[in-house]
């Protein structure tokens, strides 16, 4: 149980546990432990465990929590909020679906402990509407825990979203919960200072929250030591795309792509690794030379990409990289909120150009325009939130790594 804390209690068929079964497996012991500690001590533990947020940015969870003011110390009236982000829609990401469906009590335990540590009175678990089984499982878990008196004074509810990738962005999610179109907000002020309804708010990803009980159970040092690198704990990695057995794999943080791909049955298609995205659709491509790179936030950033969600998308030698880029850009163009110009105008244009290339009708000027857009829009700050930067990561690394394909497509004037 200790080696793979996140998934070892799950049933192979993903059926969620009833409360009694969950408690028999040791569930909710961590909640009692946490409640016996002052919030600051829980945060100390999470910091010592080196838990980095698993939603994509990798920000240290403890440090984020420390920004939250104690109850009654922020101006105005109202609760402090915890939002558990389960709006997983990134291409290649399928870990939160599993955690919500198979381990709803684990998510809830994590939320209760996090709410205690961050002085929150209310927790909202936001889940995308396509995850109906996950919504039902978590709602049932809340109901059971409430009846058993496990929630204490914490108000917890599920908020189903209704389909739009941008809702998963930390501040857009807050705007959405207030009943507006999910448009991101400028930081500062950070949500811990002024979030939902202007109240102190912490937003954490489902996987981050799910790891929290295990820090309490194992202790900070043991949790940290589960990792192979400086970043603590295990990671729910995913491997999909051109592999023989796409799957989720819980493994020590810092596990390599070589090991993960092997466990997923190896490369399918022509059997040769061409490239992989280490962290979902919004991460830049890495090549075979990075097969032995320890996959964590720090190492992947140094290698020039982003660890993001830790969900690998694998390309073999026979997959068409331009086709993949075209799908990615179509996705980002459609799922952006359209509120600021780079996304609203830029992404549909890029998407259309890539479609032309895929159809063998690309032009030299188009290629120049792709390069220009990638160069101009890549640095953070060109658009209001990180969606545009995320979309440009595969494009700019793809233009570099697949330059020969683009040239070949230009020269032949049709798909090879």
């Amino acid at each position, binding site marked *: 149980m200790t080696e793979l804390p996140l998934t070892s209690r799950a049933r192979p068929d993903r059926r969620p546990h009833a409360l009694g079964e969950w408690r028999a497996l040791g569930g909710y012991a961590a909640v009692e432990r946490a409640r016996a500690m002052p919030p600051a001590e829980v945060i100390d533990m999470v910091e010592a465990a080196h838990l980095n947020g698993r939603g994509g940015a990798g920000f240290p969870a403890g440090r984020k929590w420390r920004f939250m003011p104690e109850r009654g110390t922020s101006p105005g009236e109202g609760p402090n909020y915890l939002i558990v982000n389960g709006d997983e829609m990134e291409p290649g990401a399928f870990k939160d679906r599993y955690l919500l469906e198979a381990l709803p009590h684990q998510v809830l335990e994590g939320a209760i402990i996090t709410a205690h540590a961050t002085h929150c009175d209310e927790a909202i678990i936001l889940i995308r509407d396509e995850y109906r089984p996950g919504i039902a499982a978590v709602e049932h878990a809340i109901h059971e825990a409430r009846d058993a008196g496990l929630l204490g004074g914490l108000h917890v509810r599920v908020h189903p979203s209704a389909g739009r990738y941008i809702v998963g962005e930390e501040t857009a999610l807050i705007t959405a919960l207030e*009943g507006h179109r999910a448009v991101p907000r400028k930081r500062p002020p950070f949500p811990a200072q002024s979030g939902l309804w202007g109240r102190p708010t912490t937003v954490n990803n489902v996987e981050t929250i799910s790891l929290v009980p295990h820090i309490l159970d194992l202790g900070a040092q043991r949790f940290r030591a589960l990792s192979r690198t400086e970043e603590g704990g295990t990671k729910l990695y995913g491997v999909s795309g051109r592999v023989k057995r*796409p799957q989720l794999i819980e493994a020590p943080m810092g596990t390599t792509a070589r090991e993960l791909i092997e466990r997923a049955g190896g490369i399918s298609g022509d059997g040769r690794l061409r490239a992989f995205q280490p962290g979902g659709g919004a991460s830049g491509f890495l090549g075979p030379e990075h097969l032995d790179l320890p996959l964590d936030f720090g190492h992947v950033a140094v290698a020039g990409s982003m660890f993001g969600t830790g969900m690998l998308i694998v390309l073999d030698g026979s997959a068409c990289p331009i086709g*993949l880029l075209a799908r990615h850009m179509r*996705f980002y163009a*459609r799922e952006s909120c359209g509120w600021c110009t780079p996304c609203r105008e830029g992404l549909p244009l890029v998407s259309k150009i890539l479609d032309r290339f895929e159809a063998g009708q690309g032009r030299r000027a188009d290629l120049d325009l792709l390069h220009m857009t990638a160069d101009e829009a890549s640095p953070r700050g060109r658009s209001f939130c990180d969606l545009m930067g995320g979309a440009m990561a595969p494009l700019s690394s793809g233009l570099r790594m697949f330059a020969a394909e683009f040239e070949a497509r230009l020269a032949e004037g049709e798909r090879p």
Partner: protein
Amino acid sequence: MSLSADLLARIRAASDDHGGPRPAMLEALRMIQHEHGWVSDAHLAEAAATLGVHRAEMEALASFYSLIFRHPVGETVILLCDGASCWLNGADAVREELKARLGIGFGQTTADGRYTLLNVACLGGCDRAPAAVVGRDRRLIGPLSPEGVAELLEGGL
């Protein structure tokens, strides 16, 4: 047909549960859709009046989300994943087969009102690619193949 008294009462209750009429708007739209399959102009206006918000505010929200349907949909809505992993595993062939079998494009409903085809963002089913989510309970199915599509449609999914 106007909204049922029960539904209107639940919309009012949502306003209390969600901290006011504005944050309850999405929930109201979801409830209407759950009962009627989609959200008509008349129903939207009625819900807006019940919550005391302008119908344009409600419309702004309804048109933002891909899973709030503003046109009638078929009995079974097929949401085919648009994600990269599905594409890499042959989603295009499944897409073409669905279109051919049903005689409609994405965003359309069959003339007999049985099926609606929609593209959606990555469904979180990359381990079962190509994947789709089908029906009111959003059942995840996959891996799909062109042959499997025929089978699924013949079996009524």
